[in-house]
């Protein structure tokens, strides 16, 4: 009875009805997304660190050192020739040295010895010309270029094949 009187004086407020929540089942979606992610992670190949060895190109019709011929020192010529079955190997020859260099470190040592006879400033005026036979594998030509750059020579270039 008391309760009824209380309800008449203070009618219970009806809670406003909330709109029903629609929550789609995303479990399957997440599963597929993670599978896709896993696929791309496993199939992607991460490239190994590549670098670049800087060089310059002579302009056509201009030989190395022709612009300021009086300033340039006599060039150091390196020949790269293939050897072995299917040209799988190569040997190097430095003009003026009557020996065949088979090893990259040996090539560096001989180039370094030549570089030591010049000051740092003069090294910029000493052109190194790499003459490679056409059927030499590119890796060995790059090796010669790299060792010349490693020996601190600044002007390293390639001679045309057959020159």
């Amino acid at each position, binding site marked *: 009875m008391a309760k009824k009187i209380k309800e008449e004086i203070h009618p219970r407020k009806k809670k406003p009805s909330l709109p029903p*929540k629609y*929550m789609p089942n*995303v479990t399957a*979606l*997440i599963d597929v*997304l*993670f599978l*896709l*992610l896993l696929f*791309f*992670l496993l199939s*992607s190949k991460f*490239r*190994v*660190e*590549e*670098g*670049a*060895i*800087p*060089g*310059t*190109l*002579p*302009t*056509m019709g201009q030989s190395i050192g022709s612009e300021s011929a009086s300033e340039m020192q006599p060039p150091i010529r390196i020949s*790269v020739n293939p050897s072995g*079955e*299917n*040209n*799988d190997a190569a040997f190097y020859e430095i003009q003026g040295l009557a020996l065949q260099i088979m090893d*990259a*470190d040996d090539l*560096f040592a001989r180039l370094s010895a030549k570089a030591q006879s010049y000051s740092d400033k003069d090294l910029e005026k000493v052109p190194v010309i790499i003459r*490679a*036979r*056409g*059927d*030499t*594998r*590119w*890796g060995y*030509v*790059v*090796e010669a*270029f*790299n*060792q010349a*750059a*490693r020996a601190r020579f600044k002007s390293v270039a*390639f001679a*045309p*094949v057959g020159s």
Partner: protein
Amino acid sequence: MAGGGGTPGSSGTIELNVIPLVDVACLLIMFFILTSQFASANFASMELASPVESVAQKDKVENVPNRVIVNIVCMVNPQAREVDPALSLQAKEYSVGGNAISLDQVESLEGLFKEKMAEAKKAGHADFIVEIRSDKRVAFNYVEPVMIQAAKANVPKMNITAMERAK
């Protein structure tokens, strides 16, 4: 907040908001799809030269757009199990920005370099670089024409791609 912790008086279940998780997962997938497309366009798959005590530096690699990378692709895929050594001396094609250029069309590179150089100059770049990225097995006969075309186009700088020194 939708999907927040259980409201007072509820049964006590905690609902996780998975919407940001789905967003992030979708973004990651999009990232991998797009980067795999862009990365492969300029860098053809090949075996790069790995010189002893390499002086190749990653810092020397300039950013696009004042750089053109010419890939010289070997006839033999680097992943091939059985390799014919004589065949590996031969180049298959030149590849620039994902576009294949056949060996007999190497002279078209001069025009391409001039075009890219003009674009770089217009964009305000002082330097222009041609990067020669060749498979180490390929004969020098196939690389030299690219250098000649770059010299004809009066390209001032050239980079040779090689592996960095092992750290």
